[in-house]
């Protein structure tokens, strides 16, 4: 089934209007599959948006009141979403301005293309294209020295915060590692892939002589390939000495053996089962 179809079925389930076989399939999945929660939560949020957009039929609206909007949590979710949308639609004018800009720049490039397509100006056009490609290559390969993908940058922003004062990390899967554990197979730390939270907090013990203000880069390596990178990780003090704290997404932690390599040369092993 495509994602739209699946999402429509989940919304019907939430409204209490799905067929018995669909209800059973979805119900059993909710009970057994922890990863299904996010899909259900998304369907919940979409249904609320459909309601706010007035996109529900009269019958669906009745079901929305009778079967969906019956818990304080959902009423709160509706209130928050409505407030957020109202605020975003009133205050986020920049978005539409950006769009107008994009449209304008589209028509500018169109005129430029027509202008340069004359025979006389073709060599100039070729030089211009080479210059633009060069600039793009420079921007990507040289200027963006962090070398991180967008997801890695998002996590770098997350990890740049003071994780000692981030209350949400209390609920994350938490794994402490000591350097060198990868070599000893029996003592390799093992994580149960089925029980991981969406983000996983790793705490990496550092040698006592590590300067407090040093920043570390990190590579997550699986089968010799780097699967995730982080930069600018800070040193934290704990009761036993010093450590690095880093949050990594569950999506990069499939089954297998991993090594976390630090820019200092330290290496930490663990396995996901």
């Amino acid at each position: 089934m495509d994602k739209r179809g699946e999402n429509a079925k989940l919304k019907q389930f939430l409204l209490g209007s799905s067929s018995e076989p669909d209800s059973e399939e979805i119900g059993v999945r909710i009970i057994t599959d922890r990863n299904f929660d996010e899909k259900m939560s998304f369907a919940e949020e979409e249904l609320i948006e459909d309601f706010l957009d007035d996109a529900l039929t009269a019958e669906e609206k009745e079901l929305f009141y009778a079967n969906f909007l019956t818990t304080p949590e959902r009423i709160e979710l509706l209130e928050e979403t409505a407030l957020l949308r109202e605020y975003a639609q009133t205050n986020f004018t920049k978005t539409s301005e950006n769009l107008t800009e994009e449209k304008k720049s589209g028509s500018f490039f169109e005129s430029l293309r027509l202008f340069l397509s004359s025979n006389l100006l073709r060599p100039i056009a070729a030089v211009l294209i080479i210059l633009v490609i060069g600039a793009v290559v420079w921007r990507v390969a040289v200027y963006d020295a962090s070398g991180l993908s967008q997801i890695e940058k998002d996590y770098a922003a997350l990890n740049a915060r003071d994780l000692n004062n981030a209350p949400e990390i209390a609920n994350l899967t938490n794994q402490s590692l000591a350097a060198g554990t990868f070599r000893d197979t029996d003592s390799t730390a093992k994580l149960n892939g089925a029980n991981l939270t969406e983000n996983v907090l790793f705490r990496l013990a550092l040698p006592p002589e590590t300067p407090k203000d040093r920043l570390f880069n990190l590579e997550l390596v699986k089968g010799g390939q780097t699967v995730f990178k982080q930069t600018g990780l800070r040193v934290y003090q704990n009761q036993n000495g010093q450590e690095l704290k880093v949050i990594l997404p569950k999506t990069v932690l499939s089954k297998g053996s991993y090594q976390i390599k630090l820019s200092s040369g330290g290496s930490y092993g663990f396995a996901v089962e």
Partner: protein
Amino acid sequence: MQIEQNGIILVVLKRKLLQINRMRTKTEITQEDLVRLLGWLAPDEEEAAHKYEEIRKGLIKFFYFRGCTDSETLADETINRVSVKLAGIEFDGNVKQITYFYSFASRIYLEDLTERKKIAAKSKQIVSKFEKKDKLEKTNSPGTVCLEKCLAKHPPQERQILLKYYSFGKNEKTAMRKNLAEEQGINIEYLHTKISRLRKTVGDCLRKCLNDIKL
């Protein structure tokens, strides 16, 4: 030593489960019912206790997504009814435990519907203010003030994504969200997950802020 410790933990867990169940549910169970249930779940006690917890968590989610008001009590009621029912039944190997739990849960959900219909009438009143034609909040309302405070706790990049995500209505939102995901170099599912988490953090902050104002 480890086995002994686990044994003690299990005894404490059993007592706790029995207490919780007796406190809130309609169907009462005995120590024997609980032992029978755990034995049915798995021959190994520790594994059975783990399975019990997993099924209970799953049932709580089930009742939550079904729109029930007290998911925990209903999950416990489901487990109790299954436990009691087990006394007179011989199972062959074909019975799936989860399907068995589901059949009881779906019945309890239907029973709960009657209760919810009473609340539905109330919720209709509450949400009438969100109907499309009505303006929701005025500038400087507590909601807006708190929202601004809560958004300010996030880095500008996160704020921008969240507001951009919610800044488009019915007709344009699908296309614009797809564009936003492309801009971010992520797929649309990851964008949804990211927004969902951000919204939850903002929501928690918002509730706290509004409560503080009320106090």
